[in-house]
């Protein structure tokens, strides 16, 4: 009975019976990819809404040197983000965010080196590269904490901002930013800063937690006993995605 042997005799399942992974990847990896796709939609929504609101506001048309903060037009990023820790009062546009970008790209590289070491079953190398990746993530989060603190505290000279208090419009001096009032420009600018960089920062924070878990499991030999370091690869995908999102946030929030 040759025609029944395929289902009854052979222990192998046929292609149309779940015998192979349809996309040549394990279930976990596939689900990580689809999660990242959905997350890409979330970040796109945030960034595109930023674009929508920004194009609905007036653009600043003067020279960069003559720029002052005003709620009349959207601020130009190099005038908002020009502070670097320990160099108070010196205008260094986008330098600090450049350092942050560099840190995140480097931690992406060390992550991919950890994945490579995992393929070779090299426990010591995976531990080493995971530690570097963790360090990169922690440095990035620390930088962001400083950036937020600076953004909230504001510059030395306040900006005159119109505010609606007890039913009347008053003009008052404002330094820094909150979700309600800010010195840099239209209120939406500060709100988007908090939402977009905050949402990304939260992803980095989660990523650092996952990376620590991976490091811990590698250190205790869980993956060695399992005979596969695929978990490093899956969390690696997430970590690269966080880097990828930063590339977009960097462009659309800080450069354009």
């Amino acid at each position: 009975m040759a025609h029944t042997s395929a289902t009854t005799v052979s222990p192998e399942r046929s292609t149309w019976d779940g015998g192979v992974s349809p996309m040549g990847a394990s279930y976990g990896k596939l689900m990580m990819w689809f999660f990242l796709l959905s997350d890409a939609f979330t970040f796109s929504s945030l960034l595109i809404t930023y674009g929508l609101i920004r194009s609905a506001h007036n653009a600043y048309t003067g020279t960069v040197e003559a720029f002052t903060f005003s709620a009349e037009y959207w601020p130009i990023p190099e005038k908002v983000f020009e502070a670097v820790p320990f160099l108070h009062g010196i205008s260094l546009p986008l330098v600090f965010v450049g350092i942050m970008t560099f840190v995140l790209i480097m931690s992406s590289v060390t992550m991919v080196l950890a994945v490579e070491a995992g393929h070779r079953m090299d426990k010591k190398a995976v531990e080493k590269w995971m530690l570097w990746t963790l360090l990169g993530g922690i440095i990035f989060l620390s930088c962001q904490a400083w950036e937020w603190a600076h953004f909230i505290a504001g510059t030395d000279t306040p900006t005159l901002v119109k505010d609606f208090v007890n039913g009347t419009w008053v003009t008052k001096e404002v330094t820094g930013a909150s979700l309600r009032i800010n010195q840099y420009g239209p209120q939406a600018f500060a709100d988007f800063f908090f939402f977009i960089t905050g949402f990304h920062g939260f992803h980095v924070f989660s990523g650092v937690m996952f990376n620590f878990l991976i490091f811990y499991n590698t250190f205790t030999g869980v993956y060695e006993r399992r005979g596969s370091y695929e978990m490093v690869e899956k969390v690696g995908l997430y970590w690269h995605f966080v880097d990828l999102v930063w590339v977009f946030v960097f462009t659309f929030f800080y450069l354009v």
Partner: protein
Amino acid sequence: MAYTQEPQITVLPPDKEKIKKLWTVAGILGIITAFEFLVAFTMGHGPLKTAIFVGMTIFKAAYIVGEFMHLRYESKVLLWAILIPLIFIVWMLIAFIYEGMKFSEVNF
């Protein structure tokens, strides 16, 4: 007992070719970012500058997804399953920016 036996782990030597390639990709990402900084401070604001930034960003994104996330080397089905839905992002982008430009003509 099964647990008394040490599992046989063979640690392979580092793949020099692959590691070199990864550092090359990292170098490319660094150079593009440096170029973006150069453009940021030498060019006036305008559509051309924005177009350069968007182009560079997509270039960087392609390297990160293709090489670091290894998507280039996955099966074609997986590659397209991830890339095709991104059409929706392009659609959303066009629709929303168009709407945003109309906003400035509307008096709230």
